[in-house]
């Protein structure tokens, strides 16, 4: 089953097939979006592409999205990092703990 999942992601990345990833939202980003989690279509499965897809899907986020980091599987990710369809992805707006 795991092998199939890997092959599936590989196929999605190599071709033009559009896949989906699940994205968690927090604080002001969740408030502006009106949801705490959503699914986003991607083609190349990179963090940079996901950021662009979110800009298009949720224009109401405005500059708050561009000020946010993206975490993948519990770590801050680089923009060229690859995603899997089952990656845990979170948008991290500017933090305000303390």
């Amino acid at each position, binding site marked *: 089953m795991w092998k199939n999942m890997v092959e599936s992601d590989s196929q999605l990345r190599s071709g033009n097939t559009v896949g989906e990833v699940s994205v*968690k939202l*927090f*604080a*002001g980003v969740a*408030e502006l979006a009106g949801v705490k989690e959503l699914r986003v279509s991607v*083609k*190349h499965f*990179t*963090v*940079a*592409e996901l*950021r*662009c*897809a979110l*800009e*298009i899907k949720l224009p109401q986020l405005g500059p*708050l999205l*561009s*000020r*946010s*980091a*993206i*975490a993948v599987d*519990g*770590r*801050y*990710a*680089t*923009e*060229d990092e690859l995603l899997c369809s089952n990656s*845990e992805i*979170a948008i*991290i*707006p*500017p*933090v*305000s*703990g*303390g």
Partner: protein
Amino acid sequence: MLQVDLTDDPIDASCMLSRVASKRAGATVLFTGTTRQETDGLTTDWLEYDAYEPLARRELARLYEQAVLRFQIVKCSIVHRLGKVSVGEVSVAIAVSAVHRAEAFASASWLMDRIKADVPIWKRQVNDSEAFWVHPENSDMLAKNASRCSQESCDELS
């Protein structure tokens, strides 16, 4: 006993101190951050804290380990509240023990600065007439990701 934690319960300062007690320590510093009644002219009735817990716990543990190496402290404990925190209640506590006071003060101050910059915890300021999430202008998270998306990526999607 956890040295870093997120909790919905009130923070017990004496418990924090006992966590870092050590015969090797000649100094112990306890910092507590509390909900204040007024910020920039706006009244606050309470704060609501939310966190992306898996990453917040990981970041707190990373900061704990860095502080131990960087300041050669003896023990350290960090606890942050989640949920509703009323005026006067403790929202975050850092306890540090060290051989000398300089390391204890410096490490507690450094840890608080890093928590406010790195750990995915957010506060919502609430009063009678309004409520809003606080996203400070000086804590942009973009540096956590290497660079912005390229124009080509956006063009392809649009």
